[in-house]
């Protein structure tokens, strides 16, 4: 087994059009299964995109496996994969086979190799017959699975999951989580649902763009759930963002 | 780069979708297909270069055999009629409409876009389509104006006005969405 992928975040600030989204975050993560929790708008998705190197920090550094992935996109292709919440935002190609093969081609394999690689991945998921299926004929859960396979095919050391299972029914979630459990690389999983993060090693709780708490899964989850329960009794839904 | 390629593909698909979705109905109850309005919008929203590429991509895919034209038409047969000049003129129309949008920045967005849609989506389009018709049919100028231009003119004028209003509404809802104004290609 490969060692867990190391994520180092130092004095991270991030703002969009003058609006501060994340501020002064410093974290060193070296566990195999890491969860991120927090309320809507706490900056979870932004952190995921920073870790994946899709955007660069306004100030501070993010290093994954000792590389700055927002600069070194070539290294990023092997280091990290990201799964978004909405598969419609992720799928680029009309058929399942093309979608999975694309990432492999991007990693420098020939068209033929990529095609074989895609077939291998499908077979590993026992879905060989999906190769030529059109994405628009698939169900929502099946589309999620295609996204997962497309990312897994590239075998990144770290898989970033940005609430990929929100809105799915319980059996579909359970099935997708089962695929994730056996993933050899590290996971950084953003989720609202505590059951998604069962058995994880480490949890980070984000609140209003900063780290509220970071530590072992059980401790952080208990504190988070208690706080959420208390806030649910208040009424801050009426507050508009400034 | 990625964003431009995605936008070009997306607007090509948008033109097709405007031909596929149920016809729009004007307040007066007249149904119109929105497809040629899609051509104008490519120019007024995306700007000259991206707009023309989006339309070109659309036209190429129609030629390749996708039924993307209103009514599910497509294929090579579309390109051998004397009216095919319209399809060849589509990318030019979007380019000119986009160019007008990019250059004429002083005016109200809806008005500028409406004028750009008329100059590109009608002026430039017919400047390609009418001579093409005259050569390919073959026909004289009078006949061409009557049989290739007159039947489509009223609809196209309405669509140009709508393209102007839509571009203006897009700008109002989200200024950054009207790329012909926010970051000229």
């Amino acid at each position, binding site marked *: 087994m490969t060692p867990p992928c190391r994520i180092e975040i130092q004095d991270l600030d991030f703002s969009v059009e003058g609006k501060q989204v994340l501020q002064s975050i410093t974290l060193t993560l070296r566990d195999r299964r890491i969860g991120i929790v927090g309320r809507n708008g706490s900056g979870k998705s932004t952190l995921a*995109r920073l870790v*994946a190197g*899709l955007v660069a920090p306004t100030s501070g550094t993010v290093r994954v496996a000792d590389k700055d992935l927002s600069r070194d*996109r070539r290294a990023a*292709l092997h280091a990290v*994969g*990201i799964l*978004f919440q*909405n598969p*419609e*935002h*992720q799928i*680029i*190609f*009309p058929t399942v086979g093309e979608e999975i093969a*694309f990432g492999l081609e*991007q990693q420098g394999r020939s068209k033929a190799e990529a095609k074989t690689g895609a077939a291998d991945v499908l077979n590993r998921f026992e879905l060989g017959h999906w190769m030529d299926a059109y*994405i*628009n004929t698939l169900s929502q859960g099946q589309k999620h699975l295609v996204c997962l396979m*497309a990312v897994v095919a*590239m075998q990144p050391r770290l898989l970033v999951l940005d609430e990929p299972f929100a809105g799915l029914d319980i059996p579909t979630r359970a099935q997708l989580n089962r695929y994730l459990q056996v993933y050899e690389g590290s996971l950084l999983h953003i989720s609202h649902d505590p059951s998604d993060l069962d058995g994880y090693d480490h949890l980070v709780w984000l609140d209003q763009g900063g780290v509220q708490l970071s530590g072992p899964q059980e401790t952080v989850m208990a504190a988070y759930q208690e706080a959420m329960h208390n806030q649910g009794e208040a009424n801050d839904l009426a507050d508009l963002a400034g | *780069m*990625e*964003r431009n*390629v*995605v*936008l*070009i*593909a*997306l*607007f*090509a*698909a*948008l033109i097709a979708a*405007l031909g596929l*979705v149920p016809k*729009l*109905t*004007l307040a007066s109850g007249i149904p119109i297909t*929105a497809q040629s309005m899609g051509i104008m*919008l490519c120019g007024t929203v995306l700007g000259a270069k991206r707009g023309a590429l989006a339309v070109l*991509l659309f036209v190429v895919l129609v030629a*390749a*055999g*996708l039924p*993307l034209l209103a009514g599910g*038409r*497509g294929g*090579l*047969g579309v390109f*051998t*009629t*004397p009216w095919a000049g319209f399809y060849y003129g589509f990318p030019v129309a979007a380019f000119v409409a986009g160019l007008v949008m990019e250059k004429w920045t002083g005016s109200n967005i809806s008005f500028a876009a409406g004028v750009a849609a008329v100059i590109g989506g009608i002026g430039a389009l017919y400047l390609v389509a009418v001579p093409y018709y005259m050569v390919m049919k073959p026909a004289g100028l009078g006949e061409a104006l009557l049989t290739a231009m007159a039947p489509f003119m009223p609809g196209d004028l309405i669509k140009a006005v*709508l393209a102007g209003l*839509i571009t203006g*509404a*897009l700008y109002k*809802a*989200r200024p950054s*969405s009207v790329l012909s104004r926010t970051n000229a290609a």
Partner: protein
Amino acid sequence: MISLTSPVRTWAHHWPAGAKLAALAAATFILFMIHDLTLLVAAAVLTAGLYALPGLVFFRSGLGRLRVLWPFLAILAIWHGATGTWAEGTEIILRLLTTVGLANLVTMTTSLSEMIAIIQWLATPLRRVGLNTRAMELAIALVIRILPSLVDNGQRLSDAWRARSRRRPGWRVVVPFTLLAIDDADHLAEALRARGGILETKRN
């Protein structure tokens, strides 16, 4: 994605697409050179014969595809009727039907992937003037991928409209429709970048 390729398999499905296109170009050129009515009728009959060869189903679907021409044929008939130039009108209508018929025949017997391969081949020389053929390839795939979800979006918006209005959706629906599409574009561009983007593959 539905394409216009005929599900009825014919011998012409196996011919190379390039050869069919070259033959179509030549035939169309010749048809524009011919002004003799007898020859044009012969060409039309020959084309009809080609449609009949694979059987009745193919013939009927071919005929159905010509039906969309009727407004154009009507315009031609009215013009030539009004100006009393019947012979010229007949010639033009025959030529129109034959050239469109032959072109449709190529479309019906050539798969979409073959056509796209031809487009890519035709675009290769344009690489020298800066065309990124990889980007073009991606854009073609993206259109085919995005279109069904755009149509879904349109349907959803129309439903949302109808749920709160007695009238049918008007042109205003196009505004949220376009905004939704532009949002999708941002996400897709990001997804593309997450898997290496376009510029980088050029160096491979």
